C-alpha cells in the first residue's frame, strides 16, 4: 500500500470520526427555523474550553450542561428537552466567529452563555443578522447592555464595582479607597462608578492604577498604595494577577486598614488556594450568585456532582448552573408556541422572579435587559467564601 493511500485512508477516517462526533449527529426530530422542535429546543454556546481562559470558563458551560441534563432527565420542560451545543473557541476570534455562524446555521434558538469579552462582539452581529436572542453571556462588555436582543444576568463591572463600593462603605463605614483596575472594556466607566459611589458614601477616592494582565511586578504599586494608607482596596483583574498583587501588598505591609474588595475571580479555587490565608477575614467579594457551600447552592452542587463530576464547584460553574436554571424557568413560563418573541415576552414580564435559588429575584424589564437586581456580598473565611448579605445594583 502506498504512502498516499495511507494518507487518504487516515484523512477519510479523521473526517468520518469528526463528522460522527459532531454535535447534533444523533437522529433527532425536526426543529423550526427558530431552533425549536416539538420535543426539543436548541441553544448554542461558543465558550473557551481550552486556551488561556479555558480553566475559569469551561466550568461555566459545564454548569449549563449539567443542569440541562438534569432537567432533560426529568422529562424536559413541557416535554421539550434543552439541547445546548457547546463549541470551543479557545478564546480566538476566528473560532468564535466560525462557532457563531455554525450555530446560527443550525439554527439555534439563542446564543447562550459564554465567558469573556471576546465572544460578544463576534456573536452580536451574527445574532442580529439572524434575528436571534443572545442570552446570559458572562462578559463585562458595555455593548451587551445597549443591544435589544441581549439579555444579561451578569452585571457590567462598572455596576458591580460601584455597587459593592457603596455596599461596603455602608456596612463597614466610609473610608479611603484605592482602585486597581485591569484593562477591561469600560475602564473609565468603572472608575467613574467607583468615584461616584465613594462620594455618595462620603468616602474618599485616593487613586487608581490601571494594570495589564501581565504586570511584571506589583511591588511598585504596593508601595504606592502603602503611601496612601487606604481603608479599602478595590481590585478588578484576573485571579492570578490578584493573587500576585496581594502577595506584594502583604510583603510591603500595604494591606488596607479595612478590606480588600473584589469580584468573581477572588472566589475561584485558583485564587483561594493561592491567597486565602493572606486575606482571611480581610476580603469581601461581589458575586452574581451565592458562593459554593451556601445552602442555596445545594441543588446545583449535587447536579454538578452527578452529571459533571470533574467540574469544580466554583462561582463559574454555579453561575453557569444558575443561568441554565433561569432559562429553564423562562421556558416553563413561555406559552406555546415557543418562539423567540414569546420567550422575550416572558423574560420582560418577570418581576423579581425567583428563577434560580442561587440568585436574588430577576427582573429583565429595564432598558439594559439586565436581569440581576442584586448581588451577593461574601467574605473570605477559612479558605471559603461565605455569603453575608445581598446588595442592590443600579437599575
Amino acid at each position, binding site marked *: 500500500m502506498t504512502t498516499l493511500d495511507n494518507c487518504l485512508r487516515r484523512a477519510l477516517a*479523521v*473526517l468520518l470520526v*469528526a463528522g460522527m*462526533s*459532531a454535535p447534533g449527529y444523533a437522529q433527532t426530530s425536526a426543529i423550526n427555523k427558530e431552533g425549536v422542535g416539538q420535543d426539543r429546543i436548541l441553544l448554542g454556546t461558543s465558550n473557551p*474550553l*481550552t*486556551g488561556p481562559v*479555558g480553566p475559569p470558563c469551561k466550568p461555566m458551560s459545564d454548569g449549563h450542561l449539567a443542569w440541562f441534563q438534569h432537567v432533560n432527565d426529568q422529562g424536559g420542560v413541557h416535554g421539550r428537552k434543552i439541547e445546548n451545543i457547546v463549541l*470551543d473557541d479557545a*478564546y480566538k*476570534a*476566528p*473560532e468564535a*466567529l*466560525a462557532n457563531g*455562524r*455554525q450555530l446560527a*446555521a443550525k439554527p439555534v434558538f439563542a446564543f447562550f452563555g459564554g465567558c*469573556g*469579552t*471576546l465572544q460578544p*462582539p*463576534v456573536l*452580536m*452581529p451574527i445574532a442580529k443578522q439572524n434575528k436571534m436572542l443572545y442570552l446570559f453571556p458572562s462578559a463585562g*462588555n*458595555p*455593548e451587551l447592555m445597549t443591544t435589544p436582543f441581549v439579555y444579561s444576568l451578569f452585571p457590567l463591572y462598572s455596576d458591580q464595582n460601584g455597587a459593592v463600593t457603596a455596599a461596603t462603605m455602608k456596612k463597614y463605614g466610609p473610608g479611603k479607597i484605592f482602585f486597581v483596575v485591569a*484593562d*477591561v*472594556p*469600560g*475602564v*473609565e466607566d468603572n472608575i467613574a462608578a467607583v468615584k461616584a459611589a465613594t462620594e455618595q458614601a462620603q468616602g474618599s477616592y485616593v487613586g487608581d492604577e*490601571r494594570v*495589564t494582565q501581565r504586570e511584571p511586578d506589583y511591588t511598585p504599586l504596593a508601595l504606592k498604595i502603602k503611601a496612601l494608607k487606604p481603608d479599602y482596596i478595590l481590585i478588578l483583574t484576573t485571579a492570578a494577577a490578584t493573587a500576585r498583587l496581594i502577595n506584594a501588598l502583604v510583603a510591603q505591609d500595604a494591606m488596607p486598614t479595612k478590606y480588600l474588595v473584589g469580584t468573581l475571580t477572588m472566589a475561584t479555587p485558583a485564587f483561594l488556594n493561592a491567597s486565602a490565608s493572606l486575606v482571611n477575614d480581610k476580603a469581601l467579594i461581589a458575586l452574581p450568585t451565592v458562593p459554593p457551600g451556601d445552602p442555596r447552592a445545594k441543588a446545583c452542587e449535587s447536579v454538578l456532582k452527578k452529571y459533571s463530576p470533574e467540574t469544580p464547584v466554583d462561582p463559574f460553574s454555579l453561575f453557569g448552573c444558575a443561568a441554565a436554571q433561569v432559562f429553564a424557568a423562562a421556558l416553563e413560563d413561555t406559552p406555546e408556541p415557543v418562539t423567540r418573541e414569546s420567550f422575550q415576552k416572558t423574560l420582560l414580564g418577570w418581576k423579581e422572579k425567583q428563577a434560580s435559588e442561587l440568585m436574588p429575584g430577576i427582573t429583565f424589564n429595564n432598558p439594559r435587559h439586565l436581569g440581576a437586581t442584586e448581588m451577593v456580598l461574601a467574605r473570605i473565611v477559612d479558605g471559603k467564601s461565605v455569603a453575608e448579605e445581598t446588595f442592590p445594583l443600579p437599575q
Partner: protein
Amino acid sequence: MRIATEARSGTAVATAATLAALAVIPFLPIGDRLHLILTIGVIYAIAAVGIDVFSGYCGQLTFGNFAFMAIGAYASAILAQDFGWPPWATILGSIGMAALVGLLLGAAAVRLPHLGTAMGTFFFATTVAVALRGATLAPLTQGPTGLPVQKVTIFGDDITPQQIYWLAWILLAVVTVVSYRYANSRAGMALRLIKRSEVVAESMGVHVISHKLYAFVWSAITAGLAGFVYAQALEYIIPEAFPGFESVILLTMAIIGGLGSIAGPIIGAVGFSIVGELTRSMGDVRQIAFALLLLANLVFIPGGMYSLIAWARGALRGNRARGDEAVRNQLSAPPAGPMFTHREPRPRDVSVAPVLQLRDVVVRFGGITAINSVSLDVARGTIHAVIGPNGAGKTTLLNCISGLQPHQGDIHFKADRIVGLTARTVRHRGLSRTFQNPSLVADLTVEENVCMGTYGSTPASPFLDVLPLRSTLRRDREAMRLAHAALDAVGFPADRRGLTASSLSLADQKIVDIARAIAGSPELLLLDEPTAGLAESEIEQIAAVLQKVNHEHGMTIVVIAHHIGFVRAVADYVTVLDFGTCIAEGLPEDVTRSKEVMDVFLGAEDD
C-alpha cells in the same frame, strides 16, 4: 540571527497551482464552517506571503507582523467610523498606515544586529497589543470595548461571507504575484545575497539597510491588507482579536509551509487553519497535539511543506538533484593541465601613478596592532600578491581597502582618497573583491550569482524592479550579458551556468566568485585567498583564471595567498606581511627566496 533555509526560484507553477486550488476548494461541499476557516487561512496567507519576502528571501526574522494586521484592521474601522471614509477606500488606509508604521519601525529594527530585528518586532507586537487596550489610543480604538467595522458593499449590498473569501483570494493573488516578482527580481536577488551575507552584499554594492527596509515594509503592507479583510470577516474588532503571540503563529505558518517559496507560506497558513479546525474536537489535548505536529514538521520537514512538493515534482519527473548533473559535468571535464604556467613578471612602470596606494595604514584591535604602518603601491594592470602566515594581517588589510575595516593612515584609489567610505561606495568607485569563502547564494544559479556582480555599477529601484518595465527588462538582459562575459573571461563552461551554486565544487565556486567580482567591470580586483582549501590541480585552475583575466582584460588584481608556487606563477609583485608589518616586497622570485621570508614561512607550504 538569520534564517538559513533555502530560498527558491522558479516556484511559479507551484504557486499558481496553490492559488488555483484555493479557487476550486470553495466549490467543494465543505460546509460553511470550513469555508470560514478557509477564508481565515487565506487572510493569514496574505500576511504570510509578505513575511516570506522578508524572512524567506531576506533571511530576517519578524515576530511582529500580526500587529500590522491589527493596524490595518483598526485603520480601516477608524477611518470609516470616525472620518467617514467609504469602506472600500479604507483599504488604502490599511495599507498606508501599516506601511508608515512599518517604515518607522523598520528604519530602526533592520539596523539592529543578530536577534535585533526579531526582538524589536516582538516588542512591537506586544506594544501594539497593549496599546489597543490602553487609554492613550482609546479615543480612536475605543480601548477594550473595540470598534464595529463598516462592511464594504458589492452592488449596493453588504459583502457576504462567500464574497469575503473571494476578496481575500483576489488580494492574496495580487500579493503573491507582486511578491513573486519581487523575490525573483534584481531586488529579490539582493535580498538573497543579504541572507547569505550582509558583508558580502554591501561589498558588492547592495544597500543592505535599504533592501531590508523595503522588504520589511512590504511585509507590513501585506499584513495591513490582510488586516483589512480580517476586519471585514470579524465585523467587530476588539483587542482580544489581535493577541501579541499571534505574530509568532503567523511566522510559524510561513515556516511550516516553507519559507523562500511564496507558495509555501500560503500552504502553511491555509493548512494551519484547517488542521486547527480538524483537531478542534480534541479539547485540551489539541494544544499539545498541535504543538507536537508543528515540532515534527520542523524536525522532519525543515524545508516546510513546500519541500514535499518540490520532492514530489522531482520524483514525478524522474530527475535527480541538479547537483548530480554537476558531478557528471565535473567528471566529464577535461583533466587539469600541467602545474602552473609560469611567466615572467612584468616590470613596474614607475612613471605611471599606482592605481592603489596605501600609506601608513594602522589597525588596532584593543591592545593588539593588527596592521602596523603598512604602505604599498599597486601598479595598474599588474597582479600584486600579498602573502604572509596566518594572522599576518592580510585579510584585515584587504578589509581596510574595501571599506570594511576602520583604520588610520591613507588609502588612495585612482588618486581618490577612499578612507571612511562604506564598502558599497568603494564598490561603486570600481573596486571589487571576493572573500575567503566564496559566499555565493547557494540557491541561485551560477549566472544569477554572477549577475549580482553588476549591482554595484548599475542603478536600480526595488519598486521598478517589480514591474516588467522595458527599461528594467533591458537592464536585466544587460546584466545577464555581462555575467556571461565574466563567466567567459574566467572560462566557466556555458553548459554549467544554469546549475545552482550549491552544486558546484569549491574550486568552481571560487571561479564563479571571481566572475561575479569582475562582472561589474571593476578597475581593481581584490581576492582574499582564492586558493584556500583547494587541491593542487584546482590551484592551477585558479592561477590560469587570474592570468587570463589579468592578461586578456587588463584588470589589476591584488591577491592574498599562502601558496608560494601559486604566487610565483601569477604575481608581478609581492608584498610580505608578518604580524601586521611589511617585512619584504619585490619581485616574486626575489621575495620568496629571501631568508627572512623563508623563516617566516617555515612550516608553510612551499613548492
